[in-house]
């Protein structure tokens, strides 16, 4: 390649730059959760029995359904991007819509999961939580905090995907210019990936 033209010199658009930028940002997100994983491992190491007993309060079925939902939604986002590369605008929009729908189902599931806990008086700051043993208290604190923060990221991801969907519809994002779609997709994969770690840490521990 003797003539690599740097498009950004003349144009204000640089897809590679925005891709690098997105990857770097995703890296910081992983580190953000990394801090929490670190805290989780320290406290789990100190309270192995309590963590094990506390996890039995969580419904593996609910967690499993949500894992499957997110995995499928990652696939639909990937399909949306490939469809865009193949100039299939209709399929792209359909797949983005489907992803958003799956994300919504995930949140509804989460709502029922949390809601059941709340009904039993189990929420951060509640009397029940305060009277738990230290290990159980830490487990549920981390559970609410980490899945809560993950939920916030789901909402951010949904916002990004919704903006992308609108732009695809308007034609602002098209087969010749779909970096926004790709970045939103990357972000969605990150949200999915974090859940893949949260699920075993909270639902499947032995």
């Amino acid at each position, binding site marked *: 390649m003797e003539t690599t033209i*740097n498009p*950004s*010199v003349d144009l204000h658009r*640089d897809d*590679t*730059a*925005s891709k*690098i*930028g997105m990857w*770097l*940002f995703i*890296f*910081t*997100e992983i*580190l*953000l*959760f*990394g*801090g*929490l994983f*670190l*805290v989780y491992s*320290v*406290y789990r190491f100190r*309270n192995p029995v309590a963590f094990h007993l506390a996890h039995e309060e969580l419904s593996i079925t609910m967690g499993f359904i949500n894992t499957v939902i997110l995995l499928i939604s990652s696939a639909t986002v990937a399909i949306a991007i490939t469809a865009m590369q193949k100039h299939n605008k209709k399929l792209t929009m359909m797949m983005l819509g489907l992803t958003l729908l799956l994300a919504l189902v995930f949140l509804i599931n989460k709502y029922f999961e949390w809601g059941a806990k709340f009904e039993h008086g189990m929420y*951060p*700051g509640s009397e029940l*939580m*305060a009277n738990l*043993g*230290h*290990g159980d*208290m*830490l487990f549920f*604190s981390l559970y*609410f*905090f980490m899945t809560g*923060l993950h939920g916030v990221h789901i909402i951010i991801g949904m916002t990004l995907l919704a903006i992308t969907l609108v732009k695809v519809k308007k034609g602002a994002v098209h087969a010749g210019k779909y970096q926004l779609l790709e970045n939103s997709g990357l972000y969605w994969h990150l949200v999915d990936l974090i859940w893949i770690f949260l699920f075993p840490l909270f639902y499947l521990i032995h």
Partner: protein
Amino acid sequence: MAEQTIHHHEPNYLEYRGKYKGLAGWLTTTDHKRIGLLYFYSMMTFFLSGVVMGLLMKYELIAPGEQLMGAQTYNGLFTLHGLTMIFLFVIPGVAAVFGNFFLPILIGAKDVSFPRLNLFSWYLYIIGAIVVLISQFLGDGPPDTGWTFYAPYSLRTNTNVVAAVTGAFILGFSSILTGLNFIVTMHRLRAPGMGWMRMPLFCWTLYGTGWIQLLATPIVGITFLMVMAERLLGIGFFDPTIGGDPILYQHLFWIYSHPAVYIMILPAMGVITEIIPTFARKTIFGYTAIIISSMAIAFVGYFVWGHHMFTAGMSSTSRWVFSLLTFLVAIPSAIKVFNWTATMYKGSINIQPPFLWAIAFIFVFMIGGFSGLVVGSLATDIHVHDTAFVVAHFHYIVFGGTGFAFFGALHYWYPKMFAKMYNIRIANIGLLIFFIGFNLLYFPMFYLGLMGMPRRYYDYIPMFEPANLLSTIGSWIMATGLIIILVNLSRARKMTGKAVDDPWDGKTLEWQIQSPPPVENFDEIPTITTGPYDYK
């Protein structure tokens, strides 16, 4: 046809008028130079208010007993002084002002990769600053935890910690986005011919800084989020009475906040590395060694956070490992000092204010560095931990290092930024007074610390009085020097005179364009054929 040279006058960045004019034009600008100045003016405001807080504290310590304020006010004051100086001045400092202004020019680009994100970062910075300041007025009084927010006190005090922590969180976000922007810019926008090994060294230090910002800041972000959750929701992360671990807080805090010291100092070292070859009229000695040492500082600096916690409770193995790693950081730092001095050797030195600032930087930075070895070794640290010695040490590094480099950079690039030249004689006098005041202010604190005076106390026993008096007098002298420097610079702004494009005869790209730089920096992107310091 007669040859004609039509001087088509490109609007420079100061007079350029975009969609909006006046203040609105500045607040909506995506020009990296204007954003640099936005940072500069807001930062100077915060810096000067931090200076006033410092002066008040020094006045309180002029004699034993209560002078101006009681213990609680003093606690609030050193917390706010720390928050302002650390989060609003030295961490963004050199990188946000001079990095924004000069990074694109130095690599031959028209702007950073994400100009709008760049403006967004500035807004985040301002919002974060406002939230930090709000913490002073809302709730049950200003936070009194110190800028470190150590648990469990930060969880139990009635003061308004949540707002301060939220502000710091937002500022961290701003810092991450700036670092990200710079990294991508250097990867994508270097002018043709400018390989990585032809990049000016200031850019290299910004590159290292960008990576530390990306790698370290998220950790403190999540830690602050946990503190908020603990205070607002009663989640027991760090409070031992509900199962948490306060030592874990210290670890998480310093995993960011030690690398943050390198976020502060690396760009400062970069500035010094730019100044010295220009005035020594010589190519920098050991270009590659400086790059490697910068990256080594960034890398090793990530693994030394434990040296803040030698007395907090750690296994003896971790203590000596952290101590060893701390000593290792001294090596790349020393390499830089040798490179700077070797560059001057046999150079034809042109003594000008920026060069004198650089020399002053090396002097105070070395005192700071050597005292760092004292606190970095296990036995002596136990003696001086949490004393005025530590305060003296980090002011020599953070203020003496980053602060001196900031003013050095300001004197170096001022003619480029504003196309005006300040009065050189007054600049030198200001520096001399500032330098004397600085040493008189902080050097006695080494002695006080060794004698056992604790830090963060508003009162002390009579035996510490003479040294404290000296230190307070030093603070006045330093403030005088600062006023002279700033008045000199702001007067230069109003002076009429011919624009100077290259007053120091510098060889890096920013000196090849007119002053003040045109809006797009370069009419035509330059092609680079030599290294950055092509003096001989």
